[in-house]
Structures are given as C-alpha cells and as structure tokens.
C-alpha cells in the first residue's frame, strides 16, 4: 500500500465555515430528491455509504422530546462490520520519515495531558503543567501539548503552572466520571471550574438517562452546562464503552452536537472499553456530516487507551481520511492521554538521533 502522508498545514484545503453565533439557528438544506436510485439502493446506500443525511430539519429536532427521539432514531443504522473494517484498513497505512515526524509533532500538540486520580497532589499537577509546556526539556523544538486536564479543584494550580504559555487548562466537571448527581450539583461543579480559570470543560452525559431513552433530559443538561461554562469550550463525554452499540454512539454524537458541544469526546478513561479506532471513526463521520448540514464545526477527542505513537498516528489517519484536513489541528482534535506523550517523545528522540530511546529519557508521570 502506498504510504500517504498527512499534508502539512500549509497545504490544507479550505477554511472552515464561520462558526455560528450563540443562539443562531443553523440554516438547513432541504431534503433533496434522491433521483434515479431504486428503493433498495436508497435503503441500503445509507447503511453502506457513510454520510448520515439527517432526515429531519434540525431546527425543529429539539422542539420536544418526541421530535428529538424521532430524529435520533431516524439516523441511519451503523454497519458495524463495515465500520470496523474501515477503521482497521485505515490503520494499516505506513507513515514513515518526514510524514512520521510531522505526525508525531502534530500528535504532541494535540495531547490533553491528563491526570485524574484521587491521589493527585498540587505537586503532581505542577509537574504535569511543566511537562505540558516543555514536553522534552532537552529539545526545545518539541511543540507544547494542547492542554492539561485535571479535576476542578486542581484548576487553579494547573493554571498557574502553565501561565504564559499556549497550554490550556481543561477541567472535568459534572460529577465526573459517573455523572450521577443532581443537575444543580453538576452546574455548581462547572461554575467552580470556570471561575478557577478553566479554559475548557469536559462534561459527562447522564448515560442512565440516555440509555433509558430520555434524550431530552440529556439534551437539556448539556445546554445548561454549556450556558454555565460561558466562554470555556465544552467537551461532551459520552463514555462510549457504556453505550453498548454503535447506533447509540451515533445518536449520542448528534445529540451532543445539537446541544452545542464544542467537542465530542469518547470516554472518561475510567471504564474497561475506551477510545477505539472504530468508535472514533464513527464520531468523526458525525462531525463531518454535522458540519455539512449546519456549517458548525465540532471537535473530536478520543480519550483513554491510546498509549503508543503508532496508535496515535492511526487516529490521525482516520481524522484526515474521514473528517478531513480541517480537523488536523489541536483546536479540533485532541488526544486524552497521559502515557502516550512519553511514547511520542521517545519516538521523536529516535527520529532526531537515530537511536532507540528508553524510558530513562522521559519523565515518569
């Protein structure tokens, strides 16, 4: 197979459409006639080809519980075998030399360096912040990571640690990771993080409500959190490992985007199944189709379980081939990870020096 490089930023086609202003309702395309296709082709084309043409006008979708439910259940079903095969085949690309160097730097710049442990101390968060700003102190050409991701009570410490750099501070909120708390508590959690200076809020959806079919509750919760986050960008975590089916992941993605998510994120990293190429591919298709329909670009963040540079590069190939080069930027794509960064740095050192590096040459998290 021919190795295809991720194009350098200068070569990226197009500029994303201007984002909508708050409260503005996106203009919608009318349903167009599908033309000469036979009924069967029409029925199966949706399953086989990936575009998920929303069957309803999105403006009315969130008008009531039943319209929202009808919309989400009207989304085409996911061809699970096809999805996994597509994700696997994109994972076989061979990315070498200059393309690899580009991909590694890009991946480093996309890392949300994360520490979400009960044992987090201010010292650990400060160390993490220092690492986020200068991932490899021996090589100052290494790009900074995108953000550090911490619990709300550590936001102030993290903010101080990354002060004066481009690194953002993201905070999980809304009773992370279970999300099992009253809305007031969740909103207080969010306000707390924002007032401490968080640039980004990572919220979890109420999976219980989602799985019970109570989509409107989830929707309203996301909009309420969005409002509470103010200027901070909102990442919505679906915990795909708990949603059971690909259909549910597709529905959750659309639900999140309809409710105003700036990012949709796979997982908390706290359950057995985290980000996989297949579920990330599915979410990338969703953001691509959402932009095609509404003009609003939404970011994607796979989190948990991505540990090696090889995996990270596979995800970048997915992004480029599915959503497109517009998403190859840390404003629109992130990796939620902690150990991944060390592997990226070791690979970077290998490319720079020609000798394999070892864990003695990166920091212990």
């Amino acid at each position: 197979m021919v190795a295809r490089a991720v194009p350098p930023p200068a070569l990226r086609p197009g500029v994303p459409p201007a984002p909508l202003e708050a409260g503005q309702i996106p203009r919608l395309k009318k349903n167009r006639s599908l033309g000469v296709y036979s009924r069967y082709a029409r029925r199966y084309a949706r399953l086989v080809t990936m575009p998920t043409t929303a069957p309803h006008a999105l403006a009315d979708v969130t008008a009531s519980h039943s319209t929202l439910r009808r919309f989400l259940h009207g989304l085409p079903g996911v061809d699970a075998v096809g999805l996994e095969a597509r994700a696997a085949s994109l994972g076989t690309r061979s990315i070498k030399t200059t393309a690899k160097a580009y991909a590694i730097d890009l991946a480093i710049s996309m890392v949300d360096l994360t520490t979400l442990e009960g044992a987090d101390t201010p010292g650990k968060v400060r160390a993490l912040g220092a690492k986020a700003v200068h991932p490899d102190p021996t090589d100052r050409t290494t790009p900074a990571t995108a953000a550090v991701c911490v619990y709300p009570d550590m936001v102030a410490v993290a903010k101080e640690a990354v002060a004066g750099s481009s690194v953002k501070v993201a905070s999980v909120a809304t009773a992370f990771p279970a999300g099992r708390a009253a809305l007031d508590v969740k909103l207080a959690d969010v306000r707390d993080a924002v007032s401490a200076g968080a640039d980004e809020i990572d919220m979890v959806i109420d999976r219980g409500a989602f799985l019970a079919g109570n989509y409107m509750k989830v929707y309203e919760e996301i909009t309420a959190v969005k409002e509470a986050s103010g200027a901070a960008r909102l990442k919505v975590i679906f915990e795909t490992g708990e949603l059971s089916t690909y259909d549910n992941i597709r529905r959750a993605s659309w639900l999140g985007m309809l409710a105003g998510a700036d990012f949709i994120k796979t997982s908390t990293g706290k359950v057995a199944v985290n980000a996989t190429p297949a579920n990330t591919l599915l979410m990338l298709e969703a953001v691509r189709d959402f932009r095609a329909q509404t003009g609003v670009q939404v970011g994607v963040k796979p989190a948990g379980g991505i540990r090696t540079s090889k995996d990270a590069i596979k995800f970048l190939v997915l992004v480029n081939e599915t959503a497109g080069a517009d998403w190859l930027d840390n404003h629109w794509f992130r990796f939620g990870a902690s150990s991944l960064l060390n592997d990226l740095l070791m690979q970077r050192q290998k490319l720079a020096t020609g000798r394999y590096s070892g864990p003695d040459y990166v920091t212990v998290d």
Partner: protein
Amino acid sequence: MSTVDRTNERLTVFKTYKLYVGGKFPRSESGRVYEVTDSKGKWLANAPQASRKDARDAVVAARKAFGGWSGATAYNRGQVLYRVAEMLEGRRDQFVREVADAEGLGKSKAAAVVDATVDRWVWYAGWTDKIAQVVGGGNPVAGPFFNLSTPEPTGVVAVVAPQESSFLGLVSVVAPVIATGNTAVVVASEKAPLPALSLAEVLATSDVPGGVVNVLSGRTAEIAAPLAAHQDVNAIDLAGADEVLAKELEIAAADNLKRVLRPQPVDDWTATPGLDRLTAFLETKTVWHPTGSLGASGSSY
C-alpha cells in the same frame, strides 16, 4: 495406486523456525527469512532474518520482564534454570542432530557437546543463590553501622552469541546473564542459528517468564548495531562480534554508558568458565544500616 508403497509414507512436516520475543514466537516483523545450511552447504531450514524493529520489540519485552525476574528470589531463579536443564535433557536427540549439522561434528562429538552444554546450564543454575555470598558481603567500617554489599543485576543485556560454537558457546554466554537476574536479548550465531532457536522452545516450556530471554536470528551486524545504540539496553556482551564489528558496537554503546564485555580470546568453550561472566553484568549496591544507639560501654551489644 499401489497401496503397498504408500502405507508407511508420511508427508514431511517441515519446521518453521521463528524468533522468540516476549515469550512468543513471532516471525520477523520484516517478513524476511534466510537460508541456513549445514557445514557442507546442504540446506537445513529457513531462519527468520530479524530487523532492527524486532530488536526494538525484544528490548521492550526484556525491559518488561526485568522487574519480575530480577525481583524473584535467587533460589527461585535457580529452580527455574535447573528446570531448563531438565527440558534440555529431554530434547537431547534433537540438539545432538542440530549441533552435528550446524558445526559439522560427528554424532558422538555432537553428543559430547550437548552433554557439556546441559552440564554448563546446571552449573550456572547452581550459582544463582551463591554468587551473592562470593562477591557481596559485610564490610568492616569504622562506625556503628552494618555495611553490606550486594550484587545487583545490571538490567537488559544484549548478547551477541559466539558464531562458531552455536550451542555450548550460546549457553555459556546466556546462562550467566540470566542467572544473576538480568534479562537478555540474544543475537544468535548468524551461520548456525537453529540450536539457539530450538533453545528458545525449551525456555518457553520451562517456567522462564516470557521476555527474560529473547532470541533473534539474522545478520549479526544488522541486529547488533541498533541494540548497541539503544538507550534502554544497559549492557552488551560482544562475544560473537568480530574485531571490526566489536569496535563499532563499543563506540555505539559508549553513548549511554553501557557496560561492555569485549570479546574474550576464548576458543575452548568446554573449559570450566569461572565467575567472570557471572560478575560481568552485576553492579554492587552497598547499604549502611545503623546498629542502634551505643550503650554506656560504647557498644549496644
């Protein structure tokens, strides 16, 4: 079809020799193999031709195994190594055949080599829980302290196995490395890798944790170079490197201060080896323990 001729005829079952990395038997990542012949040039088998990526994977596996293996009690390591000798004994005929082919020996001479190899393995197995008493111990110091020196394993050791002595030589360099708690990445003899690859099968079935020994076959220079330069390899044994290669590897190894064991002028692997190879990959840890407060008499005893 004549049934008389065919009743006893069996299809040949060719053996696919594979690498041994992390307790598994993968093919080379590069997909390459090379032809291995006996001393007269007759084809024996295709051996995997490992690449630098296989070497890298082997180092990762060896590093992963190091904690468990070095942390195991010396007694336990001795038991495990003795079990390897038991398994070798059970496969004696196979090794006699392979060594005879590889080194062009007659059957009885090859059998003597295999016996010597098993004995060598047992000899090193016995040393696991004795070496600390020989090279470690209590040091007399001028103060109220117990001062104790203990030998500690160095870490991941890359071993370039001897080229000519494909089995006895191999075991003579690998056994001392792992007996003391190091983990090894072994580059088998380029010309005669089959005994080494079969030894891997023995290791896999004798309680040696996966990754403690990793066996690579292929072009020695190609595999040894990245190992010598690897930042996560702590030591390298250059037994099987020729003069030019040994010099190159030693230069590459200098960068992260690897412990280097230069090729020794040893021709006779059958001679009793002594402790040099055991101690080559040990480092000494010395600790001071207070004996407790001194009594009025000047001693706490």
